[in-house]
């Protein structure tokens, strides 16, 4: 129901939603004293976005996103450790002096990334490439970009399924080794997706170009 409602909204409202959320996720902070309050706000908004994505997609998709995010979190933890140990400044706008705020800032960063995932994926769920066509040259490019994104998402799911069927990645997570194997093989899923997407991109770009030219011709007439 909610999906259909959002789908029927005009592109203007959908993009506006995207812009508003992006401002909420990446606000300008003038002082480090704002970090604790903002952290609470961010967690609340991430829950809302997660719920929205669940309603627009499925529980299964939500779990997949969470799993991918958790893998990223492992790598992120390693990077952030380097920042903390070297006492590097982590914010582009404020100088964080207190360690408590520094740790909090580093902790909310992956939450922000998760919120970005949910926002982007929810946007993809309610939008169609066809909506961009009326915006000329830029619209065509956006349309193709969006379709490429949809195909890459589908491709990634298929690669993951194929790898699960082959036993390359585990089907259940009962022991630490299963997580380790999944993390180790995750870059392979991405690499295969990119490799297979390259083939699709080449051919579809030509088909799309043909479509674009045809549209131009018919609008001239």
């Amino acid at each position, binding site marked *: 129901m909610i999906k259909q409602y959002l789908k029927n909204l005009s592109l203007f409202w959908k993009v506006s939603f995207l812009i508003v959320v992006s401002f909420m996720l990446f606000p300008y902070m003038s002082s480090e004293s704002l970090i604790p309050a903002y952290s609470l706000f961010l967690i609340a908004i991430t829950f809302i976005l997660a719920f929205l994505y669940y309603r627009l997609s499925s529980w299964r998709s939500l779990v997949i996103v969470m799993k991918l995010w958790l893998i990223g979190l492992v790598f992120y933890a390693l990077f952030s450790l380097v920042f903390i140990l070297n006492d590097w400044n982590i914010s582009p706008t404020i100088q964080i002096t207190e360690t408590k705020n520094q740790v909090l800032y580093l902790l909310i960063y992956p939450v922000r990334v998760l919120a970005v995932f949910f926002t982007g994926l929810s946007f993809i769920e309610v939008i169609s490439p*066809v909506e961009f066509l009326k915006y000329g040259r830029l619209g065509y490019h956006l349309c193709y970009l969006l379709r490429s994104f949809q195909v890459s998402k*589908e491709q990634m799911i298929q690669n993951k*399924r194929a790898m*699960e069927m*082959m*036993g390359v990645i585990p089907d259940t997570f009962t022991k630490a080794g299963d997580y380790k194997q999944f993390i180790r093989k995750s870059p392979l899923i991405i690499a*295969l997706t990119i490799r297979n997407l390259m083939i*699709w991109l*080449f*051919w579809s770009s030509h088909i799309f170009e043909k479509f674009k030219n045809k549209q131009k011709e018919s609008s001239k007439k």
Partner: protein
Amino acid sequence: MKEISFNYTIKNEILLNQIQLSLPEGSCLLINGIEDKAFTILGAILGKILPCMDLPDIDSLKLLYRDYNGALTFIKHNYPDEVSYIGCDPDRHLLFSEVWEELSAQLKLPLSKSAFQDILGQFSLPVSFLDRKIDSLSGGEKMKVALSLAFAFPHEVIILHGVVPWLDKEGRNDLLKAINQAKADKKIVVILEQEFHCLESVIDESYLLKDKHLSHTDRSQLFNHPFSQTMLDLVSRLNECVQQKKKEQMILEIDQFSFSYGSHRIYKNLSLKLFENTIYYLNGDNGTGKSTLANILFKMEKTEPRKIRLFDRFIEDYTRLEINRFIAYVGQFPENQMIWNTMGECRQLIQSHQLDFCKVLFDTFFTQSDAYPLVYLNFAELKFLLTIMLLTKETRLLILDEPTWSLDLPGIEKWLGIISTILENMNISLLIISHAHSIMPLINAVNLKIKDCRIISQ
């Protein structure tokens, strides 16, 4: 009459030499040949897709697409500027998210259901299909949508490359009707195809692409002698091998199994028994759940417990890794399973393969250098490679999903050679999942047809 005559060269090396095609109005032409790069490029040139002018400025991509960036020199050109073209992957032709968007955007149609109904109805797709997401369609259904579009365009020429293997019996009949209608409308249909036997009634002229040349062939020769002597010899070798072996042990038993995707019922009280050393041929229409069966065996779907037994245990008692030891699955889209990148990686792995005959098969069929990227392999080669790579000493069931898809005659010979060798060297059963291929009736296989949510053994 349309005419086209051209050369296509890649870095001064001729790939297509003096290709000459005369296209009479209201005719259907068949082009057959080895399913290689030249064949693909010929289809794409006729489809006005190739050559591409600019390649991305990335070395690896330039290398990957180098053959598509050649020089096209016309000798004679009386060919329309716009043609409909459908290649062997329907996904490349579908540019939007949902079926109605595809039709309305590509055809610039007003949103009237009756207009959509006429277009989809040509390929027996119900009007409810309009709301379906492209991602949720099966390969065959995507191809039907792409074909509906191709025939709906007002273009004089329609080029179809490798579309038949995607279609079920009904789809093939619909294609014949669509071609006949196009011919009646004075359109020209050019079909580049390996599985052309079902098209006999609509083909007016046939050509063969061989050694860079396109030559006229005798139509009757092509349709009356579809199999080479080597193929027939290989089929009898295969049949003999299956006949000689004992078939006592049961590998798989499915008992009164039901399965649905939401409200869409796939199986109802389905029962099936598979024994060792037997070839099974699982067929049925698009969307009847042929490939789903493989997904279920690998526990990719949630199903009722205690209904499927692999040897003496139920499948839920196996881990997926254990199932992989006993069942090897070569899917419809081999690129998804190809977790290696170069021939060298595969060669290294094959050295430690448990089965010596697999090493021999690999050395016989894959002589490329170690640096050779696997993306350069064609569909058939990818499937052959996967088959060899996935077998283990304990494999008892080899599932081949659409193995003959886009295989040319030498490809079929290779495939028959590979499966004969496997059956000779192992106690293994084959489950071939396929729509229909003219070679299948010759193979001594147990015919399993999925109809009305059940499997009928014939």
